[in-house]
Each structure stands twice: as structure tokens, then as C-alpha cells.
């Protein structure tokens, strides 16, 4: 398959049904998350900055990404990732 860097292909992966919703959270929200769990940012699970989804949503090292996943029982679970280089 021909793929162009930074073009529609990397945007398209976000539309795939198996890719859960990712978004970069604001600084304020990020701090709230850290406070809620009482942790430092690097104690969150990590996502690499060159992860295809991270690139697609434009996450930079130091950001916190919010992932909303569907569970098999119909519920939703919110998890966070810390973007690392």
C-alpha cells in the first residue's frame, strides 16, 4: 500500500472501528487526572510519541492522552496515557 507521511492515511486510522477515541487533554484537565490518582506524570502508562495514533492526534512528549474504550459489556472505560519520546 502506498502511504504518504502525515497525510490522510494517518488521519484515517482514527476512523477505524477498532481504534478507540484518543484525545490530548488540556493542561488543567491533565493536572486534575494526576491529582485524582495522586501520581506523577511518568507513573501513568506510556504511549510513544511516534505511535501512529499519537502522531495522528498530534500528541507531543509531555502531553497526556485520554483514551475512551468500549468494554464488551457495553460500558465505557476512560484511561490515560503519558506521551514519551
Amino acid at each position: 500500500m502506498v502511504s504518504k507521511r502525515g497525510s490522510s492515511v494517518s488521519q484515517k486510522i482514527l476512523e477505524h472501528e477498532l481504534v478507540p477515541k484518543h484525545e490530548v487533554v488540556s493542561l488543567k484537565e491533565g493536572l486534575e487526572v494526576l491529582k485524582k490518582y495522586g501520581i506523577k506524570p511518568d507513573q501513568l502508562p506510556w504511549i510513544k510519541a511516534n505511535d501512529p495514533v499519537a502522531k495522528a492526534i498530534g500528541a507531543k512528549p509531555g502531553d497526556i492522552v485520554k483514551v475512551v474504550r468500549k468494554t464488551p459489556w457495553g460500558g465505557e472505560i476512560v484511561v490515560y496515557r503519558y506521551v514519551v519520546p
Partner: protein
Amino acid sequence: MTVTEEEKIVSMIKFGILSPEEIRKMSVVEVKSTETYDEDGLPVPHSVMDPHLGAIDPGHICPVCGNSIKGCPGHFGHIELALPVINVIFIKYIYDVLRAVCANCGRLKLPQKDIERGLKYYRKLNERHPYLARRFSEYIKKRAIKTTVCPHCGYKQPKLKLTKPITIEEYNEETRSYIRLNPLVIRSRLEKIPNEDVELLGFDPQESRPEWMILTVLPIPPIAIRPSIMIETGIRSEDDLTHKLVDIVRTNERLKEHIVAGAPQIIIDDLWELLQYHVTTYLDNEVPGFPPAKHRSGRPLKTLAQRLKGKEGRFRGNLSGKRVDFSARTVISPDPYISINEVGVSVEVAMKLTVPEKVTEWNIEELRKCVINGPYKWPGANYVVTPDGRRIDLRYVKDRKSLAESLAPGYIVERHIRNGDIALFNRQPSLHRMSIMGHIVKVLPGRTFRLHLAVCPPYNADFDGDEMNLHIPQTEDARAEARELLKVQYHILTPRYGGVIIGGLQDYISGAYLLTVKTTLLTKEDVMELLSSAGVVKELPEPAILSPRELWTGKQIVSLFIPPDFNYHGKASISAGHLKCEDIECFWDSYVVVRTGKLLMGVLDKKSIGAEQQDSFFYFLVKEYGADFAVNFIDSVFRMFIRILEKKGFTLRLDDVAIPEKAKNEIIQMLMESFKKVQEYVDQYVKGVLEVVPGRTAEESLEIKILEILAEARDKAGEIAVGYLDPFNHAFIMARTGARGNVLNLTQMAATLGQMTVRGERIWRGYMGRPLPHFSVNDLGPIARGFIVNSFYSGLSPTEMFMHAAGGREGLVDTAVRTSQSGYMQRRLINALMDLYVEYDYTVRDSSGSIIQFLYGEDGADPAKAPHGKPINVERIVERVIGWKL
């Protein structure tokens, strides 16, 4: 230097390489004498047994620290090596560093600008992401190794080659061959590398300079690390490490002499190599390429690396796992008359295991009796601890009576364990948490541990010689934890899938069937006997049959123990074949119905009371009435099941699997027909007109078809045989109720063994075109390929017996392979998961507090309480609320 008892907190541990200066600084003596003891048996000064290395004999005072054996920590000495040698442990890194730096000027082979920029980046990374810094220096190293011309001095880099184990060779342009670099050259090259370049390569130049990877000074460990053993004859036997050190000193001294005497280079090189060999094997005696150093007896020496490595090494054998006190191990045997919460402990064991009990005014009389009984009479005591911390060993107390008199509150008596104490019971392999459970001690005569049969499944125990371990918790906290969390009753439901793992098995199931089957009618005496075996006094219901005699059914008796608001319905195990029942409209009594605590119809068997059964009668009882109820149920009702078996007599005999001549003929006829069909397929195959299964070759298609026919034939034979069996034949009862065995086992005993297979194929290996020489070549017929017409009852022919053994061997090999594989898998899993825990906010964290999962299992459900991952069983709730169809 004296040892002070100053307390400090370890905030960080840093590993580095010992520098020669550091080794000299911590050394108390230079070792240069090759003799260890003089004629008087005294250690020679400046030998590897120099007294300065630490006090080892009791009463001896250390000349360095002034402590006796108790306080002296031991001191290091050192050897000044005549010529440097390579430390094998670092050979890979030495080779890498040598390749990454210039052979001429010793700089890292990258442009100055890159080095400066890289160093800045490296330092920053090291602060925030140390794992990335390591990757970065790997990348730098790779780039530097690729460079062929030094960017600093323009020197063309010669090629380097590492010849295992420890020779580094350099390509020489003039001679066009590889020339060996000796440790002196290597060391001088490493010395030239500036600190900045060293840092960029991933070393900390303060703690570990690369040239320190070449040994010039060797530390001599304290004697306490390598104690010599005295044999009764008074002959001293030295530790392996000491032997090795003596070798090193001897070679080193010889080398020194030769150098001073100006011996030819060849002799010096030879000795140098010998020194390298001794130092290498001293560090690690399993280096590939070096012959391991041997003891006089031919046993390989256990040197430094061998002490640490592997299962019995320091880490896995002494630090991660230790032998413990207050434990016992012996053979287990069954006892159906103790509670499932109990463990039977022999008196002998009970007199060795103790519990420390504080003396108070309420237990003082009791503990006095224990002290008077002493260590050899149960229930006694082994030690008394006075309030000032003195331990009195009761074995050596002459007058225990007066000691008992002197007991007062504040004393601690280490008394024997007795009935009611809590113990931890364990069987290896400890694969899940139910492998260690809390049991209440019950001291019994005999020499084995006794356990209730229903707790065999969680331990995976049987009584063919299994041994189990018993541990006695020593603190109040540990005992409370064992009682409240670990007791057997809290593990009836397994956290694996939320079903019962403790329940009826084998005889309990046969007994339950015999008690609840329709034909069982009990007289008043029978009922009273049963109830007394259950240990209860209950008012009897109205008898099911009033005349000519009062008779009760087994179902009525069982119903006495079911809570009055309990409802249940479900299939029984015997619901199969012509006794199949799908619903309440059932003639065969194979559908269990409980309404308002009365067992109305259906027999209890494996599906209802068995262990590891889903959504069963027993499961809902446990789930809805709790663990205490379940224990009571097992301890009373299950005992009744055993009693009815004892009353009726339940056994298995050869006649049980005997079938009439008529049935035999029927089976043989049926088999002959199948054989004919097989022959037809073989003929088709030979002619080449066999219908081929898609994606298979003709041979494979033939095999598949033959296996199909023969499996069908065996099943049919089984049906015929089972059809002729009396339904109350004991072997058949066990198979139907699920107590033990299945219809296939019965078929093999009564009718025919059927096809034997190895790796899922008919048996064909052995000779060319035939498995045994008794058959003709290329005979594809059933008999020649391992079909056994006979049954265990009729007996096997010699060739059949061979085929059966071939199939049986495969099973044995499979089990052996599986256990070893699952053991290693378990070890890896535990290493990965051991310190994860669920925080109070339901997040899963590791030991550093980092989040692994934001919600345990991503649904927060406890699998022990959510059968098969489903938190609620909607059907059951609806049924309980609106009632099942009437």
C-alpha cells in the same frame, strides 16, 4: 575499626567497577605467600589464610577490628598481579569500547561537535528518561564502531576481532594477519579515553572507568566467605574459592620471579596465560571455551559466579526462597470424619511445633500445666521466655514444677500446638492461592497429616504418597489473617471462574445418588442411623409410605438440610441416553427440582453436588447461604452420603463389566461390518478412485475416513454393551453419576478398546510398511494399524498389547512435558506479576505506584464473585423473585 550499631537508611544503591586504588584502600593485607599453614598448623602471614582477613575461630580476636567471631565482619586483602589480566565478566564491553574509540588517540570516533551535542543530550535524558539514555548511548556506540577513520587524529582504524572466550585480535596491515592484543595494550588504550567520551558510552567515569575492567589488583575475600571444614580426623578441607586463590597466588609469584630474573618472553607469556586462566575460572568456572577448573576428585569447582547463579544460587536459593522454622512435612492421608476446615496433625509433630502464648491471669493455670508436661508430653511446652527476654529451654530444666510455679503475667510460653490452633497447609506446586489454605489443627494419633477428601481438588492432592507442608503462624496478626482470609471455607468459590472448587467427589457422588434415588426407602432405624452419622438431631417429616411399614425416601432426608426458602432446578448427570430429561416433565428422575427447601424430584449426582460444576445445586447453596452454611452442609450431609454407601455396600467387581454371549456376538458382527467398510475404502484407495477430502492427500483422506468409521464402531460397541448392563451395576452407577469413570471406560472394559493412536494417527511406525512383523507389508487394515477388538475383560492379544502400550506411552510423555513447561511458564508469569496490587481506588499499580490498569480488569469485577466474568446471573434473580414456572 569497630562495628557500631548505628542505624542508617539506605536511600540508593549504585553499582560500579572496583578501581585498583579502591581495592588497595580496603585491603588489610597483601597476599604473596603460597603457603597457607606452617608445620604447627598456624596460618602463614600474607597468605590467603592470613588472620587479618577476619576472625573465624571462636575466642579468636581479629587483629584488625578487635572483635571476636561474633562482631568481626571480615576484611578484604589483595593480590598485586604481576601483569594485568582481563576480567571475563566484562569482555563484551571491553571489546565494544575498544571498537568505539580510536586505537591511536583514544577518542570516541565521532566529530567533536557531535560528541559535545550528544553529551548534553545524554545528560538531559539521563535525568528524565534513564531508559532512553541507555538506548541513546547504544546508538552512539554503534555509530562510532562504524567509523573507519578517526575524526580527531585521522588515524586509519585497524579491524578488531573477538575470539571467544577472551582474546582480542587486531588486523595488521603489514603482516596481513591478526595479532593478539595483550591486556597491557588493551589497558593502555582504555586509559587514554577522556572522561567525557566514557560518559557518552554509558559509563559513569567516577564509578567505573573502562580500564578498571582489566584487573591489575585482585581483592581477596574474607575467610568468612570461604570457611574451611574440619573433618573428624582433624584434617582441614579448604573451600573451593581458597583453592582457586592459592592457584592464583602461586602463578602470580612464579610470574613475578621470572620477570625479575629476566626470563625469555615465551615463558612469561605462558605463565601470563595461566594466570589469566586461574583468574577467569576464579570468577566464573563455566566460561565457554575454558576447561572448568577441577577439584582433585574431578568435581568442577564452585567459584564466585556459580555461588550466585541458578536455582540453588544465592539469589533464587537463599534470598528469594528460604527454609523456615515452625513447619512440618509428611505424607497425607484421608479422613472423612474431620471437618473440611481441619487438618489432622500427628502427636509427634504437634510436640515440635509451638505457638508463643503470653501468660495472663486467665490462661496461667493452663500454661502451667503445659510447662509441667514439658517438651515430651503433649500438650506441653518447649520454651519459656521470661519478661527480661531470657529463653529457657524446657528440655534442660530439671524441676519444671517450680518453673511453672514461677510463671507470672508477662512471661511467654512457647506451648505445643493443640486443637483449635490455626495452621497453614500447602501442597506443591503452589499454582494458585488455594494451594495454601488455613486449617484448624486437630491433633490425632498416627504419623500422617489427615485432610478431608473434599479439599483434594484445590490442592490437586491424592493419597498415593503425596506429602504436604504445615506452617504455624507465630504472630497474632498472622493468625488473624489466616483465620479470617485463608481458612478453607473462604476458598470454596475459586477466583478463577467463580465456581465451586470444593464439593462432592467420587464416593460422595455415588452416595448422594444411592440416597436420593427413587428405589431407596428407609426405615426409621435407617433414618436415625443416617442422621446420627451427620451429627444432627432433627424432627422427622411424615413418612412417604405409611403402610405396611413407615418408610422414608432419601429425598426427604436430604431435604431436612436444605434451607426452607431455597429453590433450584437443573439437569442431573444421569440425564443422558434413554434417561434424558430436559424439563420438569421427566419420568426418569434425572431432573433435579427443589422447591421451598424440599427435594421434590431428581437424584443428586455430580451435576448437583460435584466439585468444579457450574451453576449447580451446591453452588447456589454456597452463594446464597454463605461459607459457614456450606461447611456445615459438607460436614453433615456429605457424611450421610458416605454412610449410605457403607450401609449398602458399594464396590466394583469383574462381573460388573461382563456382558452376555449374545452381546459379544452382536459387537463382533458390528465390528466385522465396519472392517468391511474400511476394506472397501482401502480398495478404493488402491484403485485410486477414493473421494478426496478437500485440502488433503489421498492417504490423509483414507486415514481420516478409516478413523471415523472405527471411532463410530467403538461407540456403537459401547452402546450395545451398556445396553446389556444392569442400570444398578455399581460400575455403571459410577459412570452415570459422574463419580468416577465414563461410558468410554466402560466400553473399553466390557466391549472393545477401539483404535489406538499416536499423535492422532493410527500406529504405523516401526518396520517398513507395517508397525510389527506379525502383519503383512502395507496392510492398511484395522488390526495391522492398532485397532484392538478385545476388551479388558476378554484380554488382549500380544500384538494388541503392544499397540496399547504405544498409545499409553504417548500419554505419559505428554504429561511429563506439560508439567515442566507449565512450571517454567508459571515462573515467568509470577516474575512479571508478583508485585502488582489493587489500590483502594480500584486501580492496579506496581511497586512504584505506577498505574497498570485504571480499573481492575477494566470492569472492576471480582471473578470469585462474578461467575465467568458475568457479575450477575439475571435468570437466577428473576426466578427467585417471580418464581419458576409452576
